[in-house]
Each structure stands twice: as C-alpha cells, then as structure tokens.
C-alpha cells in the first residue's frame, strides 16, 4: 500500500500509531498523498479515519510515527505551525461574526491591507456562490450554506492541504448530493490537495481520486474508486463497498471450485490453494448472469423473494439441486436485475432459473481465520 520508494509525495505518513490509553486507534499506518489529489478516508465508525486526519492536522498528535508535508517533517508540530485548512462536521462557524467576517478571520491576523482582505473574501464568496449572504450571521443560513462558508474560511489563507472531517454528514440527502459535486469541482478548480473523512461509500466513490479504506485502525486497501469496487483486496472491503454475495466453496482437484454442488471455473485465482481447501467465493449481485433455459451453465436456483428497488429488482434465491445443497450457513444470495432484464425474463417469486457466476467477476478469499 505504501510506495516507500517514492520521495515525491506531497504528504507522507509513515508507521503512524495512535493509542488512547490501552486502546490502539491506529496501528502502524503508512500512506502517501500526491499533490493535488483528492483522497477519501472511508470506513465504519471507530475505524480510525478521523484519528488519522486529526494526527495529520496536529490536533491529536500520534503516539508514534512520522508525518511529512511538502518535504517538511511536521510530526510533532502544533496545528498553528502546519499548513492546512479544515472543515469540521459541525462547521464550527463563529456565531457572533457575519459570513464575511468568518471568511476573513484568518486573513485579518496576517496584517494584510484591508482592501486586499475585502477582495480576497469577495473572491472566496464568489467561489462558493454566497456573495449575497455576506452580511448574514451563520444561524441565518441553511446547513448547506453554512457548510460552504466553512469551506471558504478554510480556503481563505490558501493552505497547501484541505482537510474535511465528515463535511456533508449533517446535511439532507439532496443537499449532500448537490454539494459533493460542488466541492469536487471546487477542488479541481483550485487544485488543492484534499483529504476527506467519510463513512458514506457513495460519497467516497463519487468524489475521490483515491480511496483509503480503513478498518480497526489499519488500512485495508488504497486505490481508485473503480479498483476498490471491482477488485476489493479483502472480504471486508468487498462487503463495505457496495453489496457482495459471500458463499462457501471447496477447491476441487480439477482446479475448479465447487459452489452448492456445482463446479465453477475460477482460473488463476486459485494459485496456492490445494484441493479440499475451503474458500469464500464472492460475486456482486449485479454480476450474476441469469437465464431461464434449464440445463444451461450455472447453478439451478429458485427465486424466494423479489424486492422492487426502483431501477432494478433484487432477487433472493436458494439452490434447487438435490442432496440439501446450500450456499452456506445463513447466506442470503442476491441477484440484481435491471428492470428491463427482469421484465424480459418474466421474473417472479417461486420461479426456477440458472445463475451463472462468470469467472471474471468471481473472487476467491481464504476464509477469515482459516489457514
């Protein structure tokens, strides 16, 4: 995950560990962020993503490890000796200052001429389209507007790094979708290196150049949204990003995997595994191919339930071939079909179909805790 050989990264995090008493929030985390990149820290709550962000900001300095920004070792520096702007989930706007004074707050301390400050504030307010709100107080603005004021304030002093701590999670769903486009556009326009913490995978997929998936204080995977989605490095990532079917499989002597009694071709994914090994077979619901001709390729299944989810249907299925074959204990196997495809096939509950698992979409993991 860490490209140690590369000395050109803008932000270099090395072997970062953070302990709160007995609890270890970050375990030996290393990461590079390139200049101008938009990186998302994604993970469930308590995974250490905010801890990592606060360590980079110097707000809660790590127990061990180093942080370098633009070639400068900032590992032990207080926040005011670092170079970043930050937007918090609460925005932390100063309630007794107008929008204009909030944005100017960092500039007024730099002995800039008044006219320059006014020009810069005006430019920033244009950038976030809040020019007409300049004289209002934060409490008179909507959540989305407050968020943009916080963004403008963080950008005012032209920092080298922008840190966003769950900046959208306090907003309504619609505003959130709208603002994530705006933030991404703004970031591309100024080209500022940006790190955003989020627990919302959709947000991360839509905004990030690269996603850092974290769990239990370690980085599970770093990659572009496409890589993370199409080629998750671990069952955790596969499960956390999007929806994935996990089914039990057994490696056969002929190099195939037996799933619910049916042999599946898995190609090179089985390197290093021996016949008889138990594995976890993963496939996304939309990658399962369904046909109605009996006897075709795939596993014969019966549809037990169909959920209508707008643009697609989600079918829950169980294997039909005899001898009590299952996908595994308590496993709910799902197949997503577009509305059109479902219509063509005449999908309904109780129907028997063939579910094929195309080798290019199947991934094999050793079971968690297994050999």
């Amino acid at each position, binding site marked *: 995950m860490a490209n140690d050989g590369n000395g050109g990264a803008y932000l270099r995090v090395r*072997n970062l*560990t953070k302990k709160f008493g007995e609890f270890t929030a970050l*375990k*030996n985390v290393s990461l590079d962020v390139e200049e101008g990149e938009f990186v998302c820290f994604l993970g469930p709550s308590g995974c250490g993503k905010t801890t990592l962000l606060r360590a980079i*900001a110097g*707000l809660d*300095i*790590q*127990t*061990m*490890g*180093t942080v370098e920004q633009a070639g400068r070792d900032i*590992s*032990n*520096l*207080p*926040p*005011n*000796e*670092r170079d*970043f*702007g*930050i937007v*918090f989930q*609460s925005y*932390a706007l*100063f*309630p*007794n*200052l107008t929008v204009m004074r909030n944005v100017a*707050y*960092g500039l007024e*301390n*730099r002995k800039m001429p008044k006219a320059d400050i006014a020009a810069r504030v005006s430019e920033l307010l244009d950038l976030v389209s809040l020019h007409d709100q300049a004289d209002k*107080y*934060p*409490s*008179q603005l909507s959540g989305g507007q407050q968020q943009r004021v916080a963004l403008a*304030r*963080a950008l*005012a*002093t032209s*920092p080298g790094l922008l840190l966003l701590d769950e900046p959208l999670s306090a907003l309504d769903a619609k505003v959130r979708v709208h603002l994530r486009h705006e933030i991404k556009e703004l970031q591309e326009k100024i080209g500022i290196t940006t790190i955003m913490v989020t627990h919302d995978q959709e947000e991360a997929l839509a905004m990030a150049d690269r996603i850092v998936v974290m769990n239990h204080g370690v980085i599970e995977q770093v990659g572009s949204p496409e890589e993370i989605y199409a080629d998750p490095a671990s069952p955790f990532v596969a499960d956390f990003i999007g929806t994935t079917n996990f089914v039990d499989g057994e490696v056969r002597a002929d190099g195939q995997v037996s799933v619910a009694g049916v042999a599946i071709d898995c190609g090179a994914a089985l390197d290093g595994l021996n016949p008889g090994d138990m594995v976890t077979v993963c496939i996304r619901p939309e990658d399962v191919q369904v046909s109605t001709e009996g006897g075709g390729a795939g596993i014969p299944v019966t549809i037990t339930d169909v959920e209508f989810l707008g643009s697609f249907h989600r079918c829950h299925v169980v294997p039909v071939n005899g001898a009590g074959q299952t996908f595994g204990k308590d496993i709910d196997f799902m197949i997503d079909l577009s509305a059109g495809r479902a219509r063509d096939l005449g999908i309904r509950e109780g129907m028997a179909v063939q579910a094929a698992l195309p080798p290019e979409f199947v991934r094999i993991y050793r079971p968690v805790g297994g050999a």
Partner: protein
Amino acid sequence: MSDAALAAPRVKAKVSSEDWIMRAVLVGIALYLTVSILLPLYAILSKSFKNADGVFVGLANYVNFFSTPALFWSIQNSLTVTLICCVIVVTLAFIYAYALTRTCIPFKSLFKGVALLPILMPSLLPAIALVYLFGNQGIIKDWLFGHEIYGPIGIVMGECFYVFPHVLTIMLIAMANSDARLYEASDVLGASRIKTFFTVTLPSVRYGVVSAFFVCFTLVITDFGVPKVVGGKYNVLATDIYKQVVGRQDFEMGAVVSMVLLLPAVFAFAADRLVQRRQVALLSARAVPYQPKKNTAVDTGMLIFCCLIGLIMVSILGMACFASFAKFWPYDLSLSLKHYNFDLMDGGSWDAYWNSIELAAWTAVIGTAMVFTGAYLVEKSKGFHSGRAAMQLLCMIPMAVPGLVLGLAYVFFFNAPGNPLGFIYHTMPILVICTVTHFYTVSHLTAATALKQLDGEFESVSQSLKVPFYKTFFRITVPVCMPAILDISMYLFVNAMTTVSAVVFLYSPDTALASVAILNMDDAGDVAPAAAMGMMIVGTAAAVRLVHAGLTRGILSRTQAWRKR
C-alpha cells in the same frame, strides 16, 4: 506490522509558545487559589493543634472542646435547627416549585420574583425584621403563644426565609427537567394524577430534592447572620466561632470550632457533587417539555399556597423597610429618614456603605475576569492534563468552606508574623481576595457550563488559521459567553454586598462594610439604623439586578443579533 516499527520512539508533541502562555496563566490562577484557600486552610488547621503561645499541643484543644458542655452542645443545637430548617424549606420549596412549573396558576413570574427577594439581603436583615414582628415589642408577638423569638424558633424562622430562594432555584431546575412523554404515557396507561405524581414526578426530581437538601443544610449550618441576631442564649457553631474569636480572643478554640463546622459542610458538599453527577444522565436530548393542564381544585389550592408564601416574603421585607423609616418604634410610627443618618450611629457610617460598593465592584470585575479565564483554560486548553485536573479540584474547594472559617483562616494566614503577604492585612485588597475566593466555585461552574456549550472546534479552527488563542478568546469566546459573564459579575457583586461571615474578621476601621455595620449597630442596640443599612443593601442589590437585566437584554438585542434567526 514489524517489531521495529513498534519499537519506534514515541512522538513528543512540540509545545507551542501559545501553549506555554496558557499554562503560565493557568498556573498563575492555580497559585492564586493555593494562596487564597489552601494555605489559609492549612494555617487554621495547624492553629487548632497549637496553644496560645504557638506550641504544638496535639489534640488538647479538641479534648477541651468536647469536654466543655457549653461548646459541645452547640453541635447538637446546630444540627437540630439545621435539620428542622431542611425539612421545612425543602417541603415548602418543593410545593412552590411544583405550583410554578406543573400547574396553571396566574402571575407565575411575580411569584418567582417575590420568592427570590431574600437573595438581595444579608441574612441579618430578615432576623432583624423577625425581632420587629415577634420580639418583645413585636406587632404580632402573641402569635408565638408566649414563646420567645430569641432562640431556636427565631433561628429556624429566619433561616427558612433566608435559604428559601436558593432551595427553590434548585427545585425549579429539577422540575423543569421533566419529560412530557412520561406524563403522556402515564395518562394513556390510565394512572390517576396521584399515582402519576408518585411514579413519574417524584422519581424524576429525586436528585434535585436530595441536592436541595444538602445545599439547604450547608447554608443553614454555616450561616452566621440569623443566629447572631435572634439566637439569644441558644448557641450554634457559627456564633461560637465569632464569640470565641471576637468576644474571648481565644483564637485556638475558634480554630477548633471552625474545624468542627468544616466537617459537615465538606460532607454535604461532597454528597451534593455526587448526586449532581447522577442527575446529568437523567435527561435525554429528546425529552419534550411538560405543559401543565388546567385543574381548578389543584390550581386554586396552589394559588392560595403561593400567596401565603409570597405574603410572608413581602411582609418580612416590608417590616424591615418600615422599621427603618419609623421614627421611634413602637411609640412614634411617623416616617423619617433619621435612621439613615449612619454617621451619627455607633458602629455604622456612610463610609461603610461606600466601602461595600467599592468591594463589590472590585470583586465583580477582578473575580469575573479571573473566574472566566480560569474556566476557559480548564475547559479549552490542550494537554497539561495533570495541571487542568488540579485546577478543577482547586476551583471546587471554596464552596465547601464556610465563610466564617475562611475569614478566620485568613486571619491566621495573612496576619502570621513573617508572611510576605502580611502587608495586605486590614486593607481593601484582602477583602476583595477573600470575597472572590469565597464565591469562586459557583462562578466557576456557571462559566464552565457556558463554555461547554460552545463548539469544541473553535480553537482547532483558529489554530489552523494561525490566529493566536487570545484573539479568538476576546473576539469569539467572550462575546458569545457575554450573558454568562454578566451573570457571574452580578452574582459576585450582590454577594459581596450581602456577605457578612468571611469579612467580619477581616475589616479594619478604614474598610468597615455595610453588612458588618448592620451587625455592629444591632449589637449596639441601634436596631432601626441596622435595618436602614440593610435596606440600603437591598436597594443597591435590586438596582444592580435591574441594571443586569437591562444590560443582558441590550446585549442580546445588539451585539448578539446572531442569536435571532
């Protein structure tokens, strides 16, 4: 994860110059509290183990105290009147608060204001009013059926009046923290009003009741004004300290009695803190405020009750007021201002009044600045956990120390030969220091509560913008907390005007105070002028409260326009 990485050196965060400034100020305030409360307490403690010549005598003074029945009985007397007061006041305040929050009686804000009247006066004043009402020449002395006001009856009556507003305030807060959803649930389940009272109302305010009990206990057992005026021959611990020190010049015995008085006060304080910690967890953020429903029988009963209590409050203040204007009680009741001519009286002067104003002003200004800065540093500075924890503890100590004990401790500490701070003894500064310290805890808690409501990331944002913390403190923290800051300064001002207990040992002829003048004039038999001086304090405190209300409203509407949507 390699072992080499785990063995990596710990990162030692660089302490910025701003952090050093914050720590230095914090240590400065902690040092102030050490000098103004810890060291004096040590001085009085060690004094209680020494004889008049300063030789260590172990427990001899304590043995002497417990083997002298006249002294020893004071413990029982103190506990008796205190417990009686607690039962009476907590019960009455509970009903009064219930009427104000859970019924539909009219004039609620009037009743609330009337009940808070005693806060404006030194406890000496209601006692003086009781003398006019029930004393040997009292207008309704027959109501006591031949009993004398001087003694336990007078003490209990006076104390009940004096502590009522403090207990009521706690009760009102406890009652306000009610969740309407519980009442609806009880209603839907078909519970009667009485059953709802015992299953919902009482459990939800039980911590408030316990807390009120302890506060009442502490206030009564440590109060000195009421028993001084109407105690007669009935000795209690608070008057014993005064008598030992001022009357008999027996400082060692004064120290012993102080230690004996400190014990129950510390115990009640600790118990109250424990209870309050549990109260917090009781309220959920989703609670819905309770809206009382009309109930003619209950409302009428409550209205009569509130009128009675209100009448008592007003008549005691009214009696004191009238007595201060009556020419020659009880023979010539025509009105005159002659009792306000303090300069002619033995033990009083107009200088004393102006000294009080000066003391109150200094206390309000210096105290507010120090308390708010201290609370800010405890709440908002980073790192330095041991220092902040120690400061937090120091801030709590003054509340547990009765005023008389504090005042006497100052005598021992600042008047000790060789103390480099001895030069402030018998000056205005020592009165200011003593008063600020005496009322530090409540002010600190008010400031801490206000600061806790601010977004915790203001400081982080300013740091990222490279704005020094003190600029954010003055531009953001102080303006946003202005209502709380005004509350603290008013609290300090009014208390500095009314307090007697701590300063009674510390004033000098040049720094005589209005509240002490009441005591001395009453001692000298000039009871009407004493009442007049009391009315001056009441009037001043009331005026300050009005100014405070006006200022708060003005500031809210002008500089705090952001509060409006």
